[in-house]
C-alpha cells in the first residue's frame, strides 16, 4: 500500500492544509492542570505579564480569581475588557463579551475556564466556541483547562473521583492548540495549600478536602494529565516524522469499528474507542445496526442521537445501517470498510439462555481474523430507563378494540358457515382473521386476536358449546397448535409490515433525494434553484425554506426570505457552521441556518423554519438534509461557472474580432491618411499652381477625411457592440424621423441619385435605439450609393403587416455580387471583390446585422428584379403606448 520512506500523500495534504489554515489564525496556548488550585490562572497571568513587558497588546477577557489574593494581585497592570452582565435566575452573572473582544482586536487575550458553558442568550453555547471564533479572527488566546474537562477523559476521571464534571471540551480542540503548558503541583503541596486556605475560602475548604481533594484522587489525576500531555507530544513527533518522511516502521493501517446499541451506557464504548484509536493511530467508525423489527422508543432515539453526536465530536464517523441480524450486518460492514478490529460491549448475562450464542461468539466463529475487543458495560452506570406505556409506539387502544371486533365478526361468519363446512375450516377462518389483523394493526393487536380467536373457538364452537370446558381432550392440542400458529403468523405479518414501512420511508427519502437532484441538475439559473428549495426541499422537512445568497460584497442578502435573520445567516456563512434553532450557536433564532459548502467555496445559506416545533433530529432525515444542502451548493457552483464560461466565451469572441479588426484596420486606415498627408504636403509646397488646382486638392483632402470618418465610426460602433454586449437605448420612434435624420446628413454622398421614400402615414411606432438604427440606414444608403452609378434611383419603403415591420432599401444598380454567398456579405471584412478600388473595410453590413439582430429583427440581401440589390429588414412590432386622441380645432 505505502512504499517505504514516502509519506502518504493524503496525510501530507492534511498537514499542508492545516498549515495554511494556521496562517491568519491566532495561536492558542492552554494552561493545563490536574485539578482546581494547581495554579493555572496564576501561571497564565504571569505569562501574560511577560508578554506585556515585551510590548504585546494584552487584554484580559475574563479571569476567575475565586477570591484568591495572589491571583487577584496579578490582575493589576493589564488592561481589562469589560464583561457582559447576564441575568440568570434573579442574580446577574458576568459573561465574556465576545463581540467586544472582536471589536477591540487585541493581540493577545486571556480567557479563563475553557470548558465553561455560556449563559443562555450568548452567541455560542460553550466558551471554547467563543475562543474558536477569536482564533479565526487572528487573536492569540491564553486559556486554562482541567484534565477532567477533556471529552475523552471525562468518564475515566468520573470513575476515579466519583464525580463527573458536566462541562467538557472536545479533544480535537485541545489537540489543535499550538502550545499546552502543564501546570504541575505535587499532591502533597496542593493539600498544604488547601489547608492554608490559599485555594478556597476556609469554610468551604473542609468539604472540598473530604470529597474531592483526597490524596488518591490527586495522584491519579496528576498521572492522567501527565500521560495525556505525553500523548500530545507523541502526536507532534509522529506528525513531524510523517511530514519529513523519516524512515521508520509505519504502523499498519488499523481501522476500528465500535458497535453500539441505542443505550446511553454504550457511551463508554465510544470514549474507549476514541482512546484506542488515538493510541493505534487508526481511523474509527461507530456503527449502529438499526433492527427494523424493534420499534424504537423516544428515549432510545434520543440516546442514539447523543451517541452519534459524541462520536462525531470525538472524531469518528457514525454509521446507522438498517437491516436484520446484528452479527451478519456487522460482519458485512466490517468487510466493506476493511475493519481490522471490532469493539463490542458485553454484559454479564443474568439469565444464561443456553442456546443464544453471544454476539461476540458469532463474530469470532464467522471471521476469526477480525480482532475483537470486549468491554464490560455495567448496569449501574446509567439510571434505568423508564419507559411509559404511552411512549411505546404502535400500541393504540383503538387497534386492540378493532381486533376484538374482527374476531367477533369472524365468529358470526363461522357460525353461518358451520352449516356447510366442517369445524376444521372454522380454525382456518380464525387463522385468516389473525393474519389480517396483525397485518393491519401490528404485533400487539395480532397477539390479542390470536388469544381471542382461540377463546372464541373454544367457547362457541367446541362441544360443549357456550362453555370453556372441553369434552374431547384432542381439542386441547388443537388449541395449542392454533395459538402457536396464530402467534407466529401474526408476528411474521407484523414484522413484514414494519419492514415494509421502514422500506417505504427509506424509499421516500431516496425518491425525494433523486427528485431534488434531478431538478437541481436541470437548473440553469439561480432563480430556479431558489424555486426548488422553496417548493421541494423545505416541505420534505415540514418547514418553510429560503435560499440566501451573498452579494458582491460577500454579505448575505435577505430579500428572498421574509422570516430570515440576515445577521445569523451571515455568521453561518462566514464560519461555515450551522447556526440557529437546534444548534449550539445563536439558538434563540426562529430558523436553522445551514451553510452551503461547495468544493470551491461556500455559496450561500439555507434557512429552514419548521412549521411546528423543532427541526427533525432523526439521523436519517438529517443525512437527507445534508445531502440536499450539498446538492444545492453544487448546483449554485455549477450555475456560477456556467455564467463564467459564458462570459469567457463572449470575451474570446471579442478578442478574435478585435484581432481581425486590427489587421484590417491598419491597411484601410493608412490609405486615406496617406492621401491626406500627401495632398496636404502638396499644398504646402508653393509653386506654380492655379487656384483651381488648390481647390481641387483641398476638396480631395476633405473627401478623404470624410471617408476616414465613416470608417472610424463604423469601427467604433462594431467594437462597442462586440465588447460589452449591446446596450440598447430603446424608445418608441417614428421610422420616418430616423430616415429623415439619416438622409439629412447624406446629401453629398448621395449626390445626384434619386431618393424615393414610401412610408405610409399611419406606420406604427417602433421601439428602436434611434442612434444605432440611424447608422443602419446610413450604412445601407452608403452602400447603395457606393455600388450604383450616379444616376441611379434608391428606394426606401416601409410596410407594416400583422406584427412585423418590413423595411426595404433597394436600388437599380448593378446588383449583388454573384460570386459571393449572399449571407456572407454580412460577415465583417467581407466584400464583393477582394481588393476593390472602392474604399471601406466591409464593416458596414456586419454592423447593420449586429444592430438589427440586437433589436430582435433580421436583415437579408437579395437581388431585385429586373436589376439592382434589395435589403430587407424585418422588425417585430410591439405594442406601442396609447396616445390620447383629441378633436380638430
Amino acid at each position, binding site marked *: 500500500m505505502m512504499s517505504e520512506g514516502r509519506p502518504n500523500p493524503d496525510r501530507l495534504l492534511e498537514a499542508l492544509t492545516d498549515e495554511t489554515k494556521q496562517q491568519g489564525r491566532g495561536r492558542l496556548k492552554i494552561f493545563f492542570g490536574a485539578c482546581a488550585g494547581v495554579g493555572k490562572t496564576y501561571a497564565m497571568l504571569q505569562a501574560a505579564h511577560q508578554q506585556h513587558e515585551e510590548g504585546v497588546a494584552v487584554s484580559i477577557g475574563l479571569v476567575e480569581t475565586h477570591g484568591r489574593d495572589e491571583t487577584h494581585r496579578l490582575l493589576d497592570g493589564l488592561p481589562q475588557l469589560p464583561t457582559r452582565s447576564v441575568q440568570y435566575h434573579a442574580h446577574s452573572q458576568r459573561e465574556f463579551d465576545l463581540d467586544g473582544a472582536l471589536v477591540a482586536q487585541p493581540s493577545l487575550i486571556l480567557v479563563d475556564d475553557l470548558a465553561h458553558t455560556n449563559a443562555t442568550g450568548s452567541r455560542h453555547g460553550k466558551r471554547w466556541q467563543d475562543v474558536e471564533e477569536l482564533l479565526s479572527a487572528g487573536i492569540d488566546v491564553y486559556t486554562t483547562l482541567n484534565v477532567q474537562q477533556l471529552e475523552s477523559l471525562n468518564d475515566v476521571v468520573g470513575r476515579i473521583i466519583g464525580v463527573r464534571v458536566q462541562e467538557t471540551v472536545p479533544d480535537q480542540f485541545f489537540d489543535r492548540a499550538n502550545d499546552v503548558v502543564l501546570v504541575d503541583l505535587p499532591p502533597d503541596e496542593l493539600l498544604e495549600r488547601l489547608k492554608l486556605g490559599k485555594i478556597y475560602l476556609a469554610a468551604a475548604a473542609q468539604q472540598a478536602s473530604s470529597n474531592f481533594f483526597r490524596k488518591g484522587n490527586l495522584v491519579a489525576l496528576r498521572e492522567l494529565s501527565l500521560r495525556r500531555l505525553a500523548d500530545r507530544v507523541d502526536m507532534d513527533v509522529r506528525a513531524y516524522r510523517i511530514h519529513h518522511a523519516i524512515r521508520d516502521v509505519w504502523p499498519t493501517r488499523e481501522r476500528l469499528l465500535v458497535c453500539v446499541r441505542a443505550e446511553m451506557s454504550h457511551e463508554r464504548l465510544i470514549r474507549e474507542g476514541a482512546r484506542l484509536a488515538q493510541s493505534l493511530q487508526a481511523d474509527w467508525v461507530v456503527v449502529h445496526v438499526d433492527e427494523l423489527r424493534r420499534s424504537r422508543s423516544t428515549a432510545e432515539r434520543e440516546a442514539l442521537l447523543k451517541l452519534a453526536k459524541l462520536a462525531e465530536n470525538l472524531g469518528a464517523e457514525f454509521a446507522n445501517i438498517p437491516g436484520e441480524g446484528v452479527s451478519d450486518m456487522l460482519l458485512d460492514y466490517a468487510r466493506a470498510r476493511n475493519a481490522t478490529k471490532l469493539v463490542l460491549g458485553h454484559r454479564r448475562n443474568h439469565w444464561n439462555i443456553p442456546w443464544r450464542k453471544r454476539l461476540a461468539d458469532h463474530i469470532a466463529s464467522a471471521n476469526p481474523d477480525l480482532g475483537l475487543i470486549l468491554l464490560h458495560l455495567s448496569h449501574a452506570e446509567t439510571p434505568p430507563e423508564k419507559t411509559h406505556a404511552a411512549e411505546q409506539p404502535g400500541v393504540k387502544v383503538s387497534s386492540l378494540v378493532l381486533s376484538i371486533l374482527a374476531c367477533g365478526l369472524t365468529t358470526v361468519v363461522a357460525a353461518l358457515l358451520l352449516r356447510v363446512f366442517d369445524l376444521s375450516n372454522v380454525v382456518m377462518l380464525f387463522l385468516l382473521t389473525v393474519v389480517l389483523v396483525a397485518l393491519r394493526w401490528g404485533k400487539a393487536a395480532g397477539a390479542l386476536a390470536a388469544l381471542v380467536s382461540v377463546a372464541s373457538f373454544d367457547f362457541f364452537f367446541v362441544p360443549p358449546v357456550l362453555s370453556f370446558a372441553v369434552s374431547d381432550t384432542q381439542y386441547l392440542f388443537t388449541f395449542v397448535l392454533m395459538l402457536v400458529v396464530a402467534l407466529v403468523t401474526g408476528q411474521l405479518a407484523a414484522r413484514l409490515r414494519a419492514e415494509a414501512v421502514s422500506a417505504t420511508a427509506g424509499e421516500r427519502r431516496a425518491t425525494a433525494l433523486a427528485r431534488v437532484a434531478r431538478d437541481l441538475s436541470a437548473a440553469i439559473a439561480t432563480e430556479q434553484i431558489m424555486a426548488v428549495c422553496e417548493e421541494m426541499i423545505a416541505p420534505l422537512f415540514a418547514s418553510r425554506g429560503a435560499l440566501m445568497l451573498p452579494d458582491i460584497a460577500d454579505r448575505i442578502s435577505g430579500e428572498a426570505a421574509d422570516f430570515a435573520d440576515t445577521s445569523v445567516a451571515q455568521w453561518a456563512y462566514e464560519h461555515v457552521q450551522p447556526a440557529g434553532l437546534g444548534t449550539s450557536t445563536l439558538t434563540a433564532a426562529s430558523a436553522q441556518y445551514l451553510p452551503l459548502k461547495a468544493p470551491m467555496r461556500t455559496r450561500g445559506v439555507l434557512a429552514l423554519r419548521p412549521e411546528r416545533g423543532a427541526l427533525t433530529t432523526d439521523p436519517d432525515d438529517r443525512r437527507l438534509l445534508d445531502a440536499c444542502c450539498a446538492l444545492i451548493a453544487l448546483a449554485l457552483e455549477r450555475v456560477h461557472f456556467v455564467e463564467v464560461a459564458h462570459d469567457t466565451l463572449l470575451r474570446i469572441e471579442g478578442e478574435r474580432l478585435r484581432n481581425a479588426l486590427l489587421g484590417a484596420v491598419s491597411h484601410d486606415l493608412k490609405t486615406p491618411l496617406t492621401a491626406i498627408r500627401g495632398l496636404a504636403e502638396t499644398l504646402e509646397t508653393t509653386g506654380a499652381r492655379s487656384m483651381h488646382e488648390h481647390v481641387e486638392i483641398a476638396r480631395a483632402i476633405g473627401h478623404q477625411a470624410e471617408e476616414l470618418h465613416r470608417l472610424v465610426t463604423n469601427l467604433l460602433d462594431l467594437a462597442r457592440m462586440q465588447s460589452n454586449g449591446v446596450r440598447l437605448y430603446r424608445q418608441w420612434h417614428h421610422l*420616418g424621423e430616423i430616415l429623415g435624420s439619416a438622409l439629412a446628413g447624406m446629401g453629398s454622398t448621395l449626390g445626384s441619385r434619386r431618393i424615393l421614400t414610401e412610408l405610409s402615414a399611419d406606420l406604427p411606432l417602433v421601439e428602436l435605439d434611434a442612434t444605432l438604427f440611424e447608422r443602419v440606414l446610413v450604412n445601407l444608403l452608403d452602400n447603395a450609393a457606393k455600388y450604383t452609378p450616379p444616376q441611379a434611383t434608391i428606394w426606401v419603403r416601409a410596410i407594416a403587416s400583422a406584427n412585423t415591420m418590413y423595411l426595404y432599401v433597394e436600388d437599380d444598380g448593378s446588383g449583388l455580387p454573384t460570386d459571393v454567398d449572399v449571407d456572407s456579405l454580412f460577415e465583417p471584412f467581407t466584400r464583393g471583390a477582394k481588393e476593390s478600388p472602392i474604399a471601406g473595410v466591409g464593416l458596414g453590413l456586419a454592423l447593420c446585422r449586429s444592430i438589427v439582430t440586437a433589436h430582435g429583427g433580421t436583415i437579408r440581401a437579395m437581388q431585385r428584379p429586373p436589376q439592382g440589390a434589395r435589403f430587407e429588414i424585418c422588425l417585430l412590432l410591439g405594442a406601442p403606448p396609447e396616445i390620447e386622441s383629441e378633436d380638430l*380645432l
Partner: protein
Amino acid sequence: MSKRRILIVEDEADIRRFIRLALEREGMTVFEAGSAEQGRIDAASRQPQLVIVDLGLPDGDGKTLIRELRNWSTAPILVLSAREHEQEKVDAFDAGADDYLVKPFGVPELLARVRAQLRRASIVTTEGANPSVMTFGAIRVDLATYEITRAGIPVHLTPIEFRLLAALIRGHGKVITHRQLLLDVWGPGYIDRPHYVRVYMANLRQKLEDDPARPQHLITELQVGYRLAGLNRET
C-alpha cells in the same frame, strides 16, 4: 450693422483656427478661449453675440459654463459635441444651449448654424413683444388668431398640434429638447412619455411639410429634440 462678435471656447488649437478663419471670412470678429476658465473671463469682458462651447473641455464641464453664461446673458450658445453622447447634448440644452454641431463638422454646416442663430437673436432683440405672425417656407402662422395657411390654403390643426407648433416657434430656431416640449405643451405629468412628441411631430410634418420624409423646417435632432428652421417674421 457692426461686426458680429463671436467667442470660441475650445481647447484644440487647430479647431479654433479653422473656425476663426471661416467666421472672419464672413466678416465677424472672433475671440478665442482655450479653457473654461478663460472662456468665463472672455465672455464677461468681450460681451460676444454668440458663443461656441466645446463640451469636452479639460478644466471643467461645458454644462456648468453654459449655466453660468445663461445667468447673465441671452446670447445664443452653440455646442460642439462628440457623436455618442446624447445625454450630454440633452443636458446642455436643458442648461440653456441653443444649437449644436457634431464633431467632425464641416465649414458650411458651421456657417449655416451660426448665421441661423444670429438671425434668431436679431428677431428677438429688435422686437419688444413676440411678433404674432411668423412664416417658414410656404407656411404662414398667425399666433393671435390661430390661423395657419400653407401656400394660401388653410390647414386644420388640433389644439395640441398648435401648441406644439407655437412652442417651436417661440424657440426661434433653437433646438428644444423632448423634455422641454413635453413640459410646455402637455405638462409635468407627461415628462416620461416622449412618444407623444414624436407622434404629434409626425402629424405636423404630414400636414405642413412637402416631403414629410425629408423635412425642410420641422427638423428632427435624433434622441435630443426638435428644431424649427427657416423661421422669419412677417414684415
